[in-house]
């Protein structure tokens, strides 16, 4: 994987650069749309299919992923100059795994009901390619604050996509949003839940539609 480096730019701006300069805002906003981890980089697809049956577990998953991307990016970026190059992947993995276990433990203590549902998937954050991808491509070559912003951006980019997918899957698959029965509330009690949306195939279809809309809008062409 190649290392993107934005540090050259820093030579000109140096010291005086504000915490949220234009360049830094771009680090956050890029992954939301133009460089979205799921729809453009096609990373983290597996969990996008697995956890998006309902909104609530998806939201928890999104928050967990944001937490892990931000802090693993921060830690790896701080350590980037002392991490031995030959074992860097395993070091990244150890940091990510520790953070994920921490999230899992906290969920079990304070949100037991949710932990029962997302428990398995939280463990799978370790294998989420987005996190390893950002560590390898960004945090290893950039300063801590930039890396935190990159983590936030990637985390949000991932989150809004899986939340969008979950919204449609729960709406059509279970007829509800956050377990609130939408169709019954508007008086359509005979709504027949769509079983396809409950299975991972439904996520594939919605994800495909999102990618289609996004590429049409941005005029993205496959190189």
């Amino acid at each position, binding site marked *: 994987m190649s290392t993107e480096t934005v540090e050259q730019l820093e030579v000109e701006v140096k010291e005086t650069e504000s915490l949220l300069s234009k360049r830094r805002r771009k680090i956050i906003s890029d992954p939301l749309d133009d460089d979205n981890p799921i729809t453009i980089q096609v990373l983290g697809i597996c969990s996008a299919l697995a956890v998006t049956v309902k909104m609530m577990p998806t939201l928890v998953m999104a928050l967990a992923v944001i937490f892990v991307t931000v802090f693993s990016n921060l830690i790896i970026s701080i350590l980037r100059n002392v991490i031995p190059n030959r074992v860097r992947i395993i070091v990244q993995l150890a940091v990510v795994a520790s953070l994920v*276990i921490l999230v899992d433990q906290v969920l079990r203590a304070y949100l037991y009901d949710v932990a029962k549902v997302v428990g398995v998937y939280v463990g799978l954050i370790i294998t989420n390619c987005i996190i390893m991808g950002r560590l390898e491509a960004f945090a290893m070559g950039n300063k801590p604050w930039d890396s935190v912003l990159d983590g936030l951006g990637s985390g949000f980019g991932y989150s809004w996509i899986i939340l969008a997918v979950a919204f449609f899957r729960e709406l059509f698959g279970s007829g509800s949003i956050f377990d609130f029965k939408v169709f019954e509330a508007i008086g359509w009690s005979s709504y027949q839940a769509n*079983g396809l949306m*409950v299975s991972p195939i439904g996520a594939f279809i919605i994800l495909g539609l999102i990618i289609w809309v996004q590429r049409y809008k941005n005029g993205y062409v496959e190189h």
Partner: protein
Amino acid sequence: MQQSNLYIIIFSVALTVVLGGLLSIAAVGLKPMQTKAIELDTKKQILSSVMELTPETDVIGTYNSRTNSIVVNLEGELIENDKDGNPLIAEKISIEKESKKDPEDMLLPVFLYMNEKDASKVDAYIFPLFGNGLWDKIWGYIAVSPDLTTVKGIAMDHKGETPGLGARITDKEVKDRYKTKKLFDANGNLVGIEMKKGERGDPSLFGEHEVDGMSGATLTGNGVNDMILKYIQFYQAYIDKIKAGETVALN
């Protein structure tokens, strides 16, 4: 950056010690909260078999004031201490672990839901359930009226049943189908309750030992049927004793 093997080894060891230490501290620090969360969850499940729980329900309070628990063995005898002589707490017994033992060695907890006014009268006997669904384990609690035949309510949960299909065993609508059904026939023989294949939507079509099925989830339904039959069998001796008017003392 050129690094020696020694540097790599020292770095790796230091990293492992730091991360391992942090995780141990987190695990130890969060343990009391986790135990509490699990306890609350168990009590919630037990209570939900006999009553409607809302987010406002004081689960621990209601549980402590209304519920007694005992542990019996396959012969229906009261067991007070475990093998090492420590007093047994019914709520702490892992139903999953017990289900893997030989039936003769199993510790079988019984939760007694007491009458609100007369605390010596039992309103419902609650038995734990554990079995296999289609994809993974399923478990629950079945509350039986003092006649020890009529089902008062059931609470079920699952680990990995298909959402919208087998996972519907947690829906109130499916659980309500079990109410007033009978576990034993008129002669006192154990029959169990069978969830039928297919879903017909009309409760009047089903006898007192049958309930309507879940469309597309026949295999989960079969798992539920087996689970109920198996666990009531384990408690058969205890149930016979109570029916015969014997008392199995309360803790």
